[in-house]
């Protein structure tokens, strides 16, 4: 029988009681690469836990497959040989499981089954960060169903929210939550972690942000990662309020901004805040202007940072550059890369994946029909064929970015001949096409 699609409100009102034992799961991920794995924390589950505790009062447990081990690493393993390679176009991508294996769940469950440790969960809620990661979600549902045949399986998170019908049809579950309440102001139930995680995720604008950070520091968690659409909202007051209230909680407290920092929204006041030693890293989103970049915004942002006594390049700072979006042009990509590199000192290429219901997906729905949803991972460059840029070319851009990041400090570089991309890069460098001002970069070739 296919799963029902419900809202969270309905789920809690009709399917959950105080007697329930709810297990929240942050499942493993099957992917070809996962650069930001260390910042995977199921903030939605942690806030949901607080919500359920206050609204329902049921027993809550958490199994975070992605929690780092004692050495700070997230366990990962190549998939078995038979299913190790994903063939996408002409490329063979080796696939890994990021996070623990399902033995994690089985061992936990075996311990729970004894009388002393309490009963088996009556409901299992599985979250998801990206809709194209549903393979591992589907497998997690299978394992849960097998091990806990009587438990209700509920899917939440991005996969359930963005593609509820797909989730209901392709996963062994009972309920798919397509709408969740706004839980931004609820505290994160970090106490669900027996071992403190290495960082605390905080949503900018959340009323519980300061409290969450203070509670985290009490457990010796000193890394704080901000999430949000706009780090510069209210002229930086939201960010500043949190930093001022918590910076002195611990001398080793460090803030990380890995999304939502728009160069065009930066002000001198915010630049001064970011220049503090307590900010361990911050990365600028791409500032676009039409098809190209808003170079003025980058230049201004750089100026503000330099006025705040930050000397660029600084290893804490970099700028994102989108690749893989529909309409990519290789020369433009290279130009963008060099411009961002010039202004930010370091670049991070951000591969693109269409989000269901967003313009990129809606505008190219017909094109995307031919691509199976689990191949929408940005690392497979789903718009490669549309753009006429091969996956090899895109991979080359990664190599170039790594190369450039390393060489920019030496103010000189040489690089390989080969693909069209590298040739175009050489030509661009020769003509210094990105150059509005004198640049420290010079070719020695």
């Amino acid at each position, binding site marked *: 029988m296919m799963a029902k699609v419900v809202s969270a409100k309905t789920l809690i009102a009709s399917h959950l009681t105080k007697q329930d034992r709810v297990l929240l799961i942050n499942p493993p991920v099957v992917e070809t690469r996962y650069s930001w794995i260390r910042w995977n924390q199921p903030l939605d589950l942690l806030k949901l836990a607080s919500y359920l505790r206050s609204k329902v009062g049921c027993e809550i447990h958490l199994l975070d497959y992605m929690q780092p081990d004692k050495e700070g690493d997230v366990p990962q393993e190549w998939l078995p*040989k038979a*299913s190790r390679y994903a063939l996408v176009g002409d490329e063979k991508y080796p696939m890994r499981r990021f996070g623990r294996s399902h033995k994690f769940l089985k061992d936990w469950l075996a311990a729970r089954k*004894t*009388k002393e440790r309490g009963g088996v969960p009556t409901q299992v809620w599985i979250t998801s960060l990206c809709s194209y990661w549903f393979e591992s979600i589907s497998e997690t549902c*299978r394992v849960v*169903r097998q091990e806990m*045949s009587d438990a209700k399986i509920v899917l939440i998170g991005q996969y359930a929210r963005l593609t509820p019908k797909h989730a209901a049809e*392709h*996963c062994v579950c009972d309920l798919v939550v397509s709408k969740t309440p706004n839980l931004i102001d609820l505290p994160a139930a970090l106490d669900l972690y027996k071992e403190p995680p290495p960082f605390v995720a905080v949503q900018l604008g959340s009323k519980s942000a300061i409290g969450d950070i203070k509670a985290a520091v009490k457990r010796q968690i000193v890394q704080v990662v901000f999430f949000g659409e706009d780090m510069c909202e209210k002229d930086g007051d939201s960010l500043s309020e949190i930093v001022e209230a918590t910076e002195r909680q611990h001398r080793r407290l460090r803030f990380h901004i890995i999304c939502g920092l728009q160069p065009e929204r930066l002000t001198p006041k915010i630049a001064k805040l970011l220049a503090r030693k307590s900010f361990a890293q911050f990365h600028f989103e791409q500032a676009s202007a039409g098809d190209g970049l808003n170079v003025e915004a980058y230049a201004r942002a750089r100026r503000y940072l330099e006025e705040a006594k930050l000397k660029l390049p600084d290893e804490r700072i970099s700028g994102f550059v989108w690749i893989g979006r529909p309409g990519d042009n290789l020369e433009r990509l290279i130009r963008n890369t060099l411009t961002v590199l010039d202004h930010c000192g370091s670049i991070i290429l951000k591969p693109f994946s269409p989000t269901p219901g967003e313009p990129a997906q809606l505008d190219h729905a017909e094109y995307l029909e031919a691509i199976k*949803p689990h191949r929408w991972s940005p690392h497979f460059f789903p718009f490669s064929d549309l753009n006429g840029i091969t996956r090899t070319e895109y991979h080359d851009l990664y190599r170039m970015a790594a190369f450039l990041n390393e060489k920019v400090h030496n103010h000189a570089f040489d690089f390989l001949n080969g693909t069209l991309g590298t040739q175009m890069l050489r030509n661009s460098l020769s003509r210094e096409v990105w150059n509005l001002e004198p640049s420290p970069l010079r070719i020695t070739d």
Partner: protein
Amino acid sequence: MVGMRLGGIDPSILRELSGVYKPFVKAFKELISNAFDADADRVAVTFSDDFSTITVDDDGAGMTLFEFRNDFTRIGGGSRRWAGEKTRKGRPRIGSKGIGFLALARYCDRLRVRSSAARSFVAKFQLEQTPGSIDVRTTLGIPLENNLLNDRMKCVVLRAGSKRSKLEEGIHINWNRARTRLKVLNDVGPVDIRLSFDCSGLGFEAVLDFHRLLQLADSADLEALDDFATVELYEIADEGPVGTRIVVEQLKSFVRTELRSDRRKGFVRNVASRSGLEQFLWYLSRSTPIPYKLPQGGPNPQVADLLGAAGQMTLKELQVCHGSSPESLRRPIFPFEPDTLLISPDLLISVDVDEPGVMAKGFIAGCQSVIFPAEYRGIAIRVRGVAIGNPGFLGAEYLLTGAQKAALSQITGEINILSGLDAVDTLNPGRESFYEESDQYKILRRHLVGEGEQVGGCLGRTIAAVLRRSETKSALADALGRAAFRRRALEDVSAAVTHLIATADKSAAAIRKMLKSQRSDVNGLPSTGDFELEPPLRIGGMPVVQERGLSKPYEVDYIKGEVRLDTEQAGWNWTLLLFDRRFTIVNKKGGPNLPIAEVDHKRSQIYVNWGHPIKLQMDERGFLRTALALVLSKEASADDTSNMMDLLLKLMSFSTHHDG
């Protein structure tokens, strides 16, 4: 300091006797035994930083110089005087052969002894012929100054025989001016002379020069023996703390090198790999009469009751210091080590010998794995709290072979001899072993290892318990391993079907349709006999009880003699989840011409034919996966051969494990 002759010792004999104690720690422990015999409660051992000297202080009864000469340094005669005797506090005396003081002769240059005791020395002897005279100093054997003799010595002379009348000075007896020579003037027949010397307030410091002694042994220069031992007497102003201080001076270089040696690098498990000092302390704590290291909230407290520890007398404290803060030694035994697992009652054999001539209490324990440190393996036997030799198996190891012999590496024990076996004629001089012809030893051996060519007794029972565990563990691993292996086949097929549906494989629609089916057109398989793949009825000779809700896949109760298996866990589960539908696998022993498997959709059962010829080509896991993949791909493909082959290959190749 003046020389003092130690009664009639041939240096070459001294040299031979000193070689009895090997290695150094066994020689050193004699000093601790002496302190115990002196009724000390506390002994402090202090090493100098460079290990050149060791100072041993005890708070025992101390010694007068007479006791030092006549008891501490007296060769032989000890057996007559000490055998069976107890100390003033009622402790069974450890020293019995009177050679303990020589123990360190080979290991150091000098032994310096400082002590005192508020006691009197009394010597009684008879002068058979009168008139006659005696030289008091020669008789006492101590180089005493005249003023000391005059101040502290009393002499009573009595006629021997029934009358026993006292002889009066000036009438029957006379002294010389210095009062060192006593003359009996008349023929009064034999006389009994009683000399007493009051040692209270008089301390002494004696030095035994072993270096010189062993040199003399080479040159056989008996004349120079006087210089081997020197002594100095001094008045003690007030009653200070009693006890004895012995300083072992100028330890030989090989001893110092050993003590200074470092712990072996890397992961070490045995005592032999520890630093020299650690080894010394470990062996010292195992061979001296100190309390056991009883666990406070630690493992195996039940063992303490078996040791008879309460009935034994020990030092209250033996403290050792080198450099940093002192360490109080306790006697370690394996069951009390912090990381030791709980010893199950079936592996713990109580030893309780109570026969005429021998009483002993203790235990022999088998462990679930090889014992480390290796020095704990074997049965340690103690007489009067002192270990006799190293732990061993009383010769049983020569009778055993194969698994039984290997089991010895998992056995440890501790036996305290409460009486018997402490006579001089049962222990060799260095207390390294028993005389095997002794009757008492034979009684003990019979209890511990039995008689004849088979090993029996307590050790035999322990070996049997260890082997039983090993066999059970092996049988369990085999049964569970096979079950888990089979279970993997079901997991792989289940995961494969879920994967194909989730990724919208071209076979997904057909699979979904199959899973909705309610058909039941099976043929002959359901009516054939069952193929038993259930948990075995017995494992390791013990009946298997199936249970649920255990904290582990299995529990073994060696006392009750049963194995409990949780059939909900591990590989005993025969349900197969195919996406959202659950099937039960029913194992059948069908004929070779029946299908490899059949699906009854109505009853949600899949029959697997273990009598199919393909089974001969592969292991259980491979066969199960093949059977399921074949029947499911056939059911889903509705006789479309190419789709069926395609699906079959996908189901066969999908694995959730790296060894798939």
